[in-house]
Each structure stands twice: as structure tokens, then as C-alpha cells.
């Protein structure tokens, strides 16, 4: 058992590394395949399968591959495999959530030598190495012609990463054996079993019952209990996922914004900056973090967190002030407040419904008449698309070091460029749009950070969204294990090690 690790895992893996881009899937394929680049424990991007990479010109990146990456059949990783893999990402059939979003602006990739790959983008793209850390490279020989289903039924194809699949029963468990031919540092665990346990309480119970050694996605409410349990250790670290409240900016009557008697207001009050400021003032983020999240979150002062592009340490979040909020509301012409619905998911983020209620409380105290509506994500999304909300909760991660809120919520909807995908409130600010669009094509780091900072600041001044808090990654294990969490929320078992005594 000393060489074996059993993980209680929230996610249910897809063994085809190019199918269904969700965070938990990335963690699984990282165990059995690899990517050109890889982030370290702090989230900094560095080489992985690519020994090195460089910018050839504004539009061209060149990746040099390692020569010691051995496949099952004895052959080694070649540029052809990389090209094949990236092509496979683009052409995989029937994929509702393709990894192509990570190939943004890439127009061409070619093998320019046996171990050199050249990648061309249509605009300067500083994020290419970052993006490619999320794309799996698979051996062409082994996987060519295999369908997604084959990966499951054959329990893994052509694995060459730190582990190989030993057995897989969907919905139940994934058993991995250490790959003794792995090119990189060999992980400690000979055998890793992922037990699939989507229910939070079940994972915690399994750890307490010593059925598993490590669990991911610990519910914040159980952290206190786990900390008090002697033979359990909790490992936490920052996450790039921020919980924000999106505001509805749509013109005219909005069903979710009503007067005292429930009739939609003629004018959308949220278009008034003072109203938005009032709402932001009303929300006591500290209380939410402490009370609802049990301290397992960090108050967000802006849409970026320290270490991210655009983070401005001068920006602070003022303390909650319900009376100040009332004053602002009165100034804006709503001394009696107004009815506002807060739409939240109840099955997506930890404590999402509870946070929503707490926000409701706070708005009520500031004189508004909030209506808290919590729904499963599937239903919520439809409501949001229909603009049927006053405030709506969303969780936004980062793409590497780039805060996603800017591109997805703050930027106006531009489907063709992949902007504003979650901008359901219909916020439009051409200046901000330009600010954001300029930033992402700036190759120079400092300059880009400067532009991003401007965007972040404007977003805060305009109160385009209400940043609430950054989640923390919570993992718990037997007390005799150490574990370093990953800001991307990936559960990487080699980060778990027996504690040295």
C-alpha cells in the first residue's frame, strides 16, 4: 500500500485526451500523455515535451521537441506526432466541447524537422505556449484511426506519460500503473486508483473512513471538521477561479428588475453607475468568504488576482456599507429600492446557492427587494441567455495568467472572435473592448500587463461585474501525505508524497 494511492475524484474521465475539454479531464490525461508545455506549481509556463520554444517572428512560434520521449512501441516522439495531435484536436467528430479553443488564432502548424514544429498565428499571440499546455500530444502510430469510444473500451491507447491505464470502469474507477519508461521524473506511486465520487459528502466520508488516501474538491463547509480530524491533512492553495456576479445591462424593460409591486421597471436601473456602485457597496465579500466559504476563498478586489496579468495592487475593495448603498440608491432615484432577481447555479461551484442567498440578504439590507433564484446549470444557462436575470453568478477561471472575465463577460459579444461568450448582460463599451483586444495581441509582457491593468481598472470603475472572491483549491489526504495544489484545479497525483518524518 505504500506504493499505492487511491484518490477520491470528483470528475469522471474521458480517456480520449482530445475529447471534452473540462478541467478534470485535463488532469486525467496528464497522467498518461503529455503536452508541449507545462505549468509549474506556481502556474508559470515552461517546457515539457518541448525542450525549448521561441518566438521566430510576431506570428511564428517554434517548438523543439525532446528526443527521449519513448512510446510503448519503442519509437520516440516526433514532430509528426505533434502535428497529427493538433490536427486530431481540430477534426475530432461529435465533440461538444473541443480543445480547439486552445488553438486560438493558430492558422498553421508544420513539422520543419524531425523534432521541430513551427506554429503560425494570424495575429501576434503571446499565449501560444500557455495554450499548448492544455493540449495533449498522442503518438500517431498507436492512435491513428481510433475513435473516442476505442479509448474507453481499450482502456487507454498509446500511453507514454508517467502512468499507463491498467483498467477503467466508467463511473467507477480508473486504475493506473506507473510507466517505468517515462522520460521525466518518475512519480512516487506505483499504482494510482481514481475512485469516481461526484458527490461531495461521499468523498469526504470515504476519506474519513480511510477508503481513499486523497480527495479533491473538498467542500468548504467540511474543511473545519477535516482540520480537526487527527489523521487527515488538508492542503489548500489559490485557484484562478473567481466567482463574479454579472449585471444585466439590457435596454428597456427587464422582467427580473421590478418595482415594489413586481411590475418590470420602465428603465433598467442597473444602467446607472450609482446603482451598480450601491450594489457593490452592499455586498459584504469578507463576510461571505468567512461565513459561507469558511475562509476557503480570498476576497476579490478586482477581476484579476495577484500574479495574473493586469493585477493592480492599488485597487482595493471598499468595506461593505449598506447605508452608503442606500444613500447611493436614493441619489439614483430608488429610495425604496427595487426588485432584482439574483440567478445562481446550485450544482456548479462550491456553495454557489448559499453565496447567492447571502448576497440576497445583503441587498435586502441595503433596501433592495432581491429574489434569489437557484437552478441547475442547465436551466440557469437558458435563463441567462434569455437575459432573464438582474444579477447572475458565474465562475471564471484564468487562461494561464490572463483573467478570463475580461474577454468573456466584459468584452461585448463578438462570436466570431470568441469574445463575450458569457456576456449575457449585454454590456457594450467599445473603449474597453479595444483595450482588451489590444492587450491580447501584445507580445511584450510589460506592455501587455499595462494594457490589461487599464482594462481591469476600467472594469472596476464602471462596475461592469461584481467580483466576489477567488476560490481556493481544497484537497485533503491522509495526514502522512503532503500535496501541493494546482491553481488550475487539476489533481496531479505526483504532487502527493509521503510526508518525511
Amino acid at each position, binding site marked *: 500500500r505504500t506504493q499505492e494511492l487511491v484518490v477520491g475524484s470528483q470528475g469522471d474521465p474521458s480517456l480520449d485526451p482530445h475529447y471534452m475539454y473540462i478541467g478534470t479531464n485535463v488532469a486525467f490525461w496528464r497522467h498518461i500523455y503529455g503536452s508541449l508545455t507545462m505549468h509549474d506549481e506556481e502556474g508559470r509556463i515552461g517546457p515539457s515535451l518541448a525542450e525549448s520554444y521561441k518566438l521566430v517572428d510576431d506570428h511564428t512560434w517554434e517548438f523543439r521537441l525532446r528526443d527521449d520521449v519513448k512510446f510503448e512501441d519503442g519509437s520516440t516522439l516526433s514532430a509528426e506526432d505533434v502535428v497529427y495531435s493538433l490536427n486530431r484536436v481540430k477534426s475530432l467528430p461529435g465533440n461538444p466541447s473541443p480543445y480547439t479553443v486552445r488553438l486560438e488564432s493558430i492558422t498553421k502548424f508544420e513539422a520543419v524537422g524531425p523534432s521541430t514544429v513551427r506554429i503560425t498565428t494570424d495575429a501576434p499571440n503571446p499565449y501560444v505556449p500557455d495554450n499548448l499546455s492544455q493540449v495533449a500530444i498522442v503518438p500517431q502510430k498507436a492512435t491513428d484511426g481510433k475513435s473516442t469510444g476505442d479509448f474507453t473500451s481499450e482502456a487507454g491507447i498509446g500511453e507514454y506519460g508517467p502512468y499507463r491505464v491498467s483498467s477503467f470502469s466508467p463511473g467507477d474507477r480508473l486504475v493506473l500503473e506507473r510507466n517505468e519508461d517515462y522520460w521525466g521524473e518518475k512519480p512516487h506511486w506505483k499504482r494510482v486508483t481514481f475512485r469516481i465520487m461526484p458527490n461531495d459528502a461521499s468523498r469526504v466520508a470515504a476519506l474519513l473512513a480511510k*477508503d481513499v488516501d486523497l480527495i479533491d474538491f473538498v467542500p468548504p463547509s467540511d474543511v473545519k471538521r477535516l482540520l480537526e480530524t487527527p489523521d487527515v491533512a488538508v492542503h489548500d492553495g489559490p485557484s484562478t477561479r473567481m466567482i463574479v456576479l454579472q449585471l444585466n445591462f439590457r435596454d428597456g424593460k427587464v422582467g427580473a428588475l421590478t418595482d415594489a409591486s413586481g411590475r418590470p421597471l420602465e428603465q433598467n436601473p442597473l444602467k446607472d453607475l450609482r446603482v451598480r456602485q450601491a450594489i457593490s457597496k452592499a455586498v459584504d465579500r469578507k463576510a461571505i468568504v468567512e461565513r459561507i466559504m469558511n475562509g476557503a476563498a480570498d476576497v476579490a478586489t478586482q477581476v484579476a488576482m495577484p500574479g495574473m496579468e493586469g493585477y493592480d495592487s492599488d485597487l482595493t475593495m471598499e468595506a461593505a456599507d449598506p447605508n452608503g448603498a442606500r444613500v447611493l440608491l436614493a441619489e439614483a432615484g430608488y429610495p425604496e429600492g427595487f426588485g432584482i432577481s439574483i440567478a445562481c447555479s446550485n450544482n456548479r461551484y462550491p456553495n454557489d446557492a448559499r453565496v447567492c442567498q447571502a448576497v440576497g440578504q445583503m441587498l435586502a439590507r441595503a433596501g433592495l427587494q432581491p429574489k434569489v433564484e437557484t437552478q441547475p*446549470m442547465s436551466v440557469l444557462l*437558458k435563463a441567462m441567455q434569455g437575459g432573464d436575470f438582474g444579477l447572475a453568478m458565474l465562475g471564471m477561471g484564468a487562461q494561464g495568467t490572463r483573467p478570463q472575465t475580461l474577454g468573456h463577460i466584459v468584452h461585448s459579444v463578438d462570436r466570431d472572435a470568441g469574445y463575450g461568450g458569457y456576456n449575457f448582460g449585454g454590456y457594450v463599451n467599445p473603449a474597453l473592448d479595444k483595450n482588451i483586444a489590444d492587450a491580447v495581441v501584445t507580445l511584450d509582457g510589460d506592455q501587455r500587463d499595462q494594457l490589461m491593468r487599464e482594462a481591469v481598472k476600467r472594469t472596476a470603475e464602471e462596475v461592469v461585474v461584481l467580483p466576489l472572491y477567488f476560490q481556493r483549491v481544497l484537497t485533503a489526504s491522509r495526514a502522512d501525505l503532503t500535496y501541493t495544489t494546482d491553481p488550475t484545479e487539476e489533481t496531479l497525483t505526483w504532487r502527493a508524497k509521503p510526508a518525511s518524518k
Partner: protein
Amino acid sequence: MVSYLLRRLPQAALTMLVMSVVVFVGVFAIGNPVDILISPQATATERDNAIRALGLDLPIWQQYWSFLVNLFQGDVGRSFVFNVSALHLIMERLPATLELALASTLLGLVIGMPFGLYAGLAPNSRVSTSIMAGSILGFSLPSFWVGIVMIMLFSVHLGWLPSGGRGDTVYWLGARWSFLTTDGLAHMAMPVLNLALFQISMVIRLTRAGVREVILSDYVKFARAKGLTETRIILVHVLKNILIPVITVVGLNLGTVIAFAVVTETIFSWPGMGKLIIDSINVLDRPVIVAYLMLMVLMFVVINLLVDLAYMVLDPRVRLESR
């Protein structure tokens, strides 16, 4: 029998068809699965590609039509989430659910019948009152709550039973089963009990009601007049008559147990159909939902049929008429 089958089949087929229409329209009304699954930074093209890849770009009636066409070629569609045949996906998890449902039904009978018999034979005794009051617990507490309490008690505090999952399985008849290994049985214990609680109370109540009716009948009195021992009267004359309604209800309930194993499977991380369907509903994985529901209808029809057969075996009066 043949004619009975032939009579039921078209009805079943029609029901399945209606079901598929309802699900198609229903899921369509709830939302678009791509919006739930796809990453927000997907461009419009990517989104459109995904939608087209899943065939969701067509008008609903066309989607339904192609579903029907495929259905007649034996293809119920591929899961949006897993990109494998929905039927395959379900079949893979069917045994887990089946073994849970059957075991809990069995447990319901094994525990429920003796208690019910006792409660029916001595309706006014203190023990019977306790049995009846206790049986109320079986369906009054939400099963997720009972489940977590059981886990806390038996796994966390006492450490007797594993907290979840299926444990070791054995390959048999083309599927993996837990009940053939001791480890598997240990894993089954709690989910089965959790699921059986409702059944136990139901069987207790049914049995008691049956006993109280049968015990007053002339043939029981006649059996007494023949000088039979009370044991034989109860075990043969009374029990056999009670078995008829009990088997009917329990059998019909089996379908419900299977259909509603969702919660138990979630709590105990049991990789059955219930967990699959709830996940599929959450992400609107329509092919899986449709296939699952059609399978459920089919299963209900089959169970009805089996119940009818059991009825015929148990009740000779029915046997004659249907021949």
C-alpha cells in the same frame, strides 16, 4: 401467452415512441447541451461546429426523424458527453443497478414478510404496533439523509463497511457483478439497505393487510376444521394467498426502484444507471436520456409481463383464464 405477448408488444412500442417524443421535445425545451458543455471562449464557428456535430442545428422534427430512422437500424444514438453509443453506455451500467435493485427487493421480501406476517397475525400486540410504527420510518426519511447517516455510522465511526463504490467484481454472463465477491458484498450492503428501507415497509404493510383479510376467509377456517397445525395454516394456506398481491406490488415496484436508484447511487458512488442518468440530465445528454427512458419503458413492460407470469404461477385461477 404468445398472443398476450403480441398484444403487449405494439402497445409497448407505441409507449416507447410517445416517450421518445416527449423526451425530445422536453430536452429541447430545457436548453441546448452545447451551451453547457462548451467552453465560453469558443468562437461562433466552434460553437456552430459543435452544434452541427451533434446534429442540433436541424429543426427538432428533423432531428427526431433521423433519430427514428437510426432507431430502425438499431442505433439509438451516441452520447453527446461520451461520444459512444448511448445504449452501450447504459448497458454497461445496467448490471450495477440491476444487482442493487434486485438485492434490495429480495431484502425487502426477506425482512418484510416475516414482520408483516407477525403484525397481521397479532394485530393488537405491542410488538406489532412497534413493527407498524417502525415501518413508517422506511418511507418517511429522505433516502439521501439515511444514506449519509449510515455512512457516518458504519464507515466513519465503526469502520465496518466501505463508504462507497462497487468493490471487487467478477465477470459473469458478460457483465461485472459485485455480489459474487465478499468485498463486493461488503460494498453492496449499505446501498442495498438504503434502497430496501422503502421496500421493507411496503412489504410489511402489504403482508399485514393481506394476512388480516385472508385469515378471516372460509378456507382458513376450513383448514382449521381439518385439524391442520397453525404453522401449516400460516405458512401454506395464508402465505400462498398473500404472496399474490405482494409479488405483484413488489414486482411492479422493482421498476420504480430501478428508476429511482439515482439518489442511492449518488450517495454511495455506485456506478449504475441512476448516476448516469442524473449526470446526463444535468448536461442534457439527450441520446442517453432518450435511450434510458425507452429502456425504462421496455423494462416496465417486461416487468409487468413477468409479474403477470408470476401471477399465473401463483394464482391458478388466472392461469386457466389466460390459456
